[in-house]
Structure formats: structure tokens, C-alpha cells
């Protein structure tokens, strides 16, 4: 187990290093200086930036200094907002984005699993078709389109929910709905197919023969095994929710990290783009690592020392 964790840890560090280096290389290779873009007339900002990025020094020194600043989680000042550092933006945006992300995951996982179980129990029945219909639609409709539709119908036409911003639970309903539908659909499909497989296994028959209630069979026996694949795709889902939140935060005017990120892209605010990318990547990569470890611990069948290759 320790060997497995160490191996994953090594890969994680390498991945991180690659993304950090890639960010640096791209930053350096931006035509001209990224800090000389038009509209950037503020002398002090200019000087701060040059000092922060040590643009006068040779490139390998720049690289080492950059690594050091990333390691100490200091992403430097923003170009467009003179009094802001990237850290300020992250510090303000991250809690809100984390809240949105967390609620979304919880909603998606719970509703996805319930939908999947219902579909599997009524295999080829009306509920099955209905649930899978919802799932395919959920996968097919991009979240930004869903978000616009939700705003148009539920907020503007019928005025059930507020149109935008992030203040009360009522404000959270629409963004979470728009963001959670896709992952929910994926989880529902996955749960259904593994549930169908698990339900034909001998140990389920055995449990039935013992006279256990269907509820107990599902919750205590079937669900445990059916959920393993869901854990394996959690990393991918997290990545999807995170990138999805860029757009959702933009549409619903939620002052999270994603909104700052998209704004920085539109304004070509390079330090913010670089800083957020590194931060997002690091966050995701660590999450992926944790998912891997959780999987290794939870599934007793996984031989953690085995050679790759199924």
C-alpha cells in the first residue's frame, strides 16, 4: 500500500511540475512582453511586475525564481487591477467557488445514485427509460445552455428564483441545478449499469434466499460494490464541475474564482491567468491523488502492487 501511495505521489509531483513548467514556458513565449499590453500605462504596476517576474534576469534564473514563488504560493500582482494580487483574488473567490462546487457534487452524487438505482431496479420499465432519458439529455445539453434556459424559464418568466448572484439558498438553486445535471447524468448511468451487473451475482441471490428485505439487499450488499466505479470517475467529474463553474459563475454573476478567471482571460491579465491555472491544476491533481488513494483503500480486490494492465 505504501508503495502504491508513493508511486502515485511521485506521478502527482511530476504532473504538477509539468503544468507549472508549461505555464512558465507559455508565459515566456507570449509575443512581446505580456506586461506591455495596451492600456497598461500604470508605471507602478509595470515596475512591480518587472520586479516580481525578474524580467531583467536570464531565463533560467527567472524559471527558478518562478518555481520558488509557486512553491511559496505567491502568484504576484494582477496587471489590470493595480491594488490586487492574484492571491487576493483567489482568497476572495475560492471560498465561494468551493461552496458552489461542494453543493453541486453532493447534489449530483446523491441524485445520480438514486436515479441509477431506481433505473436498475425497474430494468426495462418505465422508470428505467425515464431515468435514462433524463440522463442522456443531461449529458447532451451543455451546462451553459441549460443555465440560460433555467434563467429564462424559472427566473424571468415564472420568477421562482432570483436571476443571479450568490446570496441566499434561493440564489443557489439555479446555478447548482445547471452545474449538477451533467455529472448527475453520468453517475446515474454508471450506477445503473454496475447495479445491473451486481444484482445478478450469486451473493445477491444468497441474500435474497436468506429472506433479507429488498431495501437491505440494495443498501448493504449491492450498493457497496456498485459504487466503486463512481469513485473512480470522481476525479473526472471534479474536473468537469470545476471547468463548468467558469461558465456558470460568469452567467449567474457569482463572484467566485471562475468568474475572475474568465475575466482575466478576456482582459489577457496574464499573471492572473497563470496563477489561477496553476492553482486550479494543483487543486485538481491533489484531488485526483486523493481519489486514487481512496480507491486503493476501499476496494479490497485491488492489488495495489500489481503491474499496470488490465
Amino acid at each position, binding site marked *: 500500500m505504501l508503495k502504491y501511495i508513493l508511486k502515485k505521489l511521485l506521478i502527482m509531483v511530476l504532473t504538477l511540475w509539468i503544468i507549472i513548467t508549461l505555464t512558465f514556458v*507559455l508565459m515566456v513565449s507570449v509575443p512581446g512582453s505580456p506586461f506591455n499590453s495596451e492600456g497598461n500605462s500604470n508605471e507602478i504596476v509595470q515596475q512591480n511586475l518587472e520586479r516580481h517576474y525578474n524580467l531583467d534576469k536570464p531565463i533560467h534564473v527567472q524559471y527558478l525564481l518562478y518555481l520558488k514563488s509557486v512553491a511559496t504560493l505567491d502568484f504576484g500582482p494582477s496587471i489590470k487591477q493595480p491594488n490586487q494580487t492574484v492571491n487576493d483574488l483567489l482568497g476572495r473567490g475560492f471560498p465561494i467557488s468551493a461552496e458552489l462546487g461542494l453543493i453541486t457534487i453532493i447534489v449530483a452524487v446523491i441524485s445520480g445514485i438514486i436515479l441509477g438505482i431506481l433505473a436498475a431496479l425497474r430494468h426495462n420499465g418505465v422508470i428505467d427509460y425515464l431515468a435514462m432519458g433524463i440522463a*442522456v439529455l443531461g449529458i447532451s445539453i451543455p451546462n451553459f445552455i441549460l443555465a440560460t434556459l433555467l434563467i429564462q424559464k424559472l427566473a424571468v418568466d415564472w420568477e421562482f428564483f432570483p436571476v443571479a448572484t450568490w446570496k441566499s439558498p434561493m440564489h443557489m438553486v439555479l446555478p447548482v441545478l445547471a452545474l449538477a445535471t451533467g455529472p448527475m447524468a453520468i453517475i446515474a448511468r454508471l450506477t445503473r449499469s454496475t447495479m445491473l451487473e451486481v444484482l445478478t451475482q450469486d451473493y445477491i441471490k444468497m441474500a435474497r434466499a436468506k429472506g433479507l428485505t429488498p431495501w437491505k439487499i440494495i443498501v448493504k450488499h449491492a450498493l457497496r460494490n456498485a459504487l466503486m466505479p463512481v469513485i473512480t470517475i470522481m476525479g473526472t467529474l471534479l474536473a468537469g464541475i470545476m471547468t463548468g463553474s467558469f461558465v456558470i459563475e460568469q452567467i449567474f454573476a457569482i463572484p467566485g474564482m471562475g468568474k475572475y478567471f474568465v475575466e482575466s*482571460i478576456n482582459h489577457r491579465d496574464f499573471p492572473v491567468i497563470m496563477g489561477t491555472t496553476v492553482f486550479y491544476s494543483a487543486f485538481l*491533481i491533489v484531488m485526483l491523488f486523493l481519489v486514487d488513494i481512496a480507491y486503493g483503500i476501499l476496494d479490497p480486490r485491488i492489488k495495489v502492487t500489481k503491474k499496470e494492465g488490465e
Partner: protein
Amino acid sequence: MKRNQNPQHYNQKNVPDEWFTWRKKDIREQELVARPSLSYWKDAWRRLRKNFLAMSGIVFLSLLVLMAIFGPILSPYDANTQVLSEQYQPPSAEHWFGTDNAGRDVFTRTWYGARISLFVGFMAALIDVTIGIIWGGISGYKGGRTDNVMMRIIEILYGIPYLLVVILLLVVLGPSLSTIIIALTVTGWVGMARIVRGQVMQIKNYEYVLASKSFGTKTPRIIRRGLLPNTMGPIIVQMTLTVPSAIFAEAFLSFIGLGISSPNASWGVMANDSLGAILSGNWWTLFFPAFFISFTMFAFNVLGDGLQDALDPKLRK
């Protein structure tokens, strides 16, 4: 025991001769298979045909491709000509899908958008497949140390968040049709390579590969004739799922301001441009691109599901 009591039973003596005919001894004819043999692909097609959803997906996508090719030619309007006097016309006999904020015909723009979105999707899938087959094929077939190194590289690349790299690349390269395709494929091929490798590793241990090796077949031929055709099933399924995700990624990029620049219409750009318009009641400018993005993704998804079932011999009834 019952045999003797049964009046219907004939023994050797009372079987009439005319029941028999003499046949020429022809080995070739004897060996003929009575029914036409079903190849893997025919069998898969037979099963796919029974899948209503998958077939509707195929029909929708074929129509879409046709319209992407001929739609702009059929329409009397130009996709990029701005007619300011005809801003936000609702759908009518003249403008079937209405007009947008610059008075451009949405019908024409939708098919132009289809061209770009489908092109991005298919190109990305094609490049992914090419790199994936080469990388995964070599890694799976060689095995051992080569495989180990190649797989570690994949594992590292796999951890890099796909869309973040795409965003980063586009910020630096500047968004255009070719840079979007390049950015989408830089790490996109990794999934395909994994699938191909898994398949190759499994198949290379089968007896028929051993047999052809023992005949002295050269390695490239074994890979080309023996391994690749049998890995095609999962590859095709993966491809049908790559195309919609590329289309989605392109729409997503347009949305955060990294799409193909504005006079060129892709569905993502069209949807993004009309976000504000929908709140003022001009629903058609968003509806048509949104409808086609969603339905294309839907069609590819159900087709992929159908193909997955049809191409898996284990699911044969």
C-alpha cells in the same frame, strides 16, 4: 424398448430406396457453408439496425452533414452580411430561423456553424485516433520496459486538467480554427492511447497471433492485419464519444471568450453572442444553435451507446 411398438419406426429393411439419392463425391461442395457467413461488421450492423435510438442518431447526423455541406448554398442569404434594418426578425417565411443582432440570417449561419463545429469535432477525433493508435499500439505490443515508460508518460499527462491546458494554449497561441484543434488534441489523445493499449495487450496473447508469428509473419504485418482490425470496435466507440466532447469544448471555449473570432459562426460563438438577446425575448437567436449543439451531442451519445452494444460480441443474443 418403445422402438418395436412404434408403427412409425422403420428398420433397415423397410426403408424405401427412393428416399435416397446418390450424390457426387465433391469435397468442395460438402465444405460449403449453407448460410452466408456473418462477418463481425455485418453482425454488428445487424444489431445496430435494431437499435431505434442509435439509428435515429445516424439519420440526424447524416442530415446534419448534408445540411452543413449544402445548407449555405441553398440559402439566398450570406452568413456574414449584416443588414441592420432587419435586426432581430422572428422566424418567418423569409428567414426560417429569424435574424440575429446584426440582421444576419440565422438559418444560414446555423449551417455554417455546423461546418465549423463538425470540422473541429471530426478533426480532433481523427488526430486523437491516429496518435492514440500509434502510441497505444507500440506500448501494448512491445510491452516490458518500453510500455512502462510510455505508460508513465500517459499517466502524467492524464493528470493534467484537459480544458485548463487548452485555455492556456489558446491564450498564448490566439484562438483560430487550427489552434483550437491543436489545443484540443495536445492531451486529448491520451484516453484513446490507453484504450488501444489495453486491447492490444489482450489480443496479442491469443493463439491466432502466436500462429501467425510461428509462420514467420513480420511484426508490422501482425500489427496491421492481426491486431488493429480487432481493436477497431472500442476505438470507434471512443471516437463517437470524442467528437461530441470536442464540439462541446469548442462551444465552451467560445463562451469564455476563446472561440473562433466573431464573423465566423460556430455554434458556440452564435450561442454566446445571443446570450443577452434571450432576455429581451429574441429567443430564436439562442434556440437554434443551442438546439443543434444539444441534439448533435445527443445523437453522438446514443450512437456511441448503440455501437458499444453492437460491437461487443459478448453482448450477442
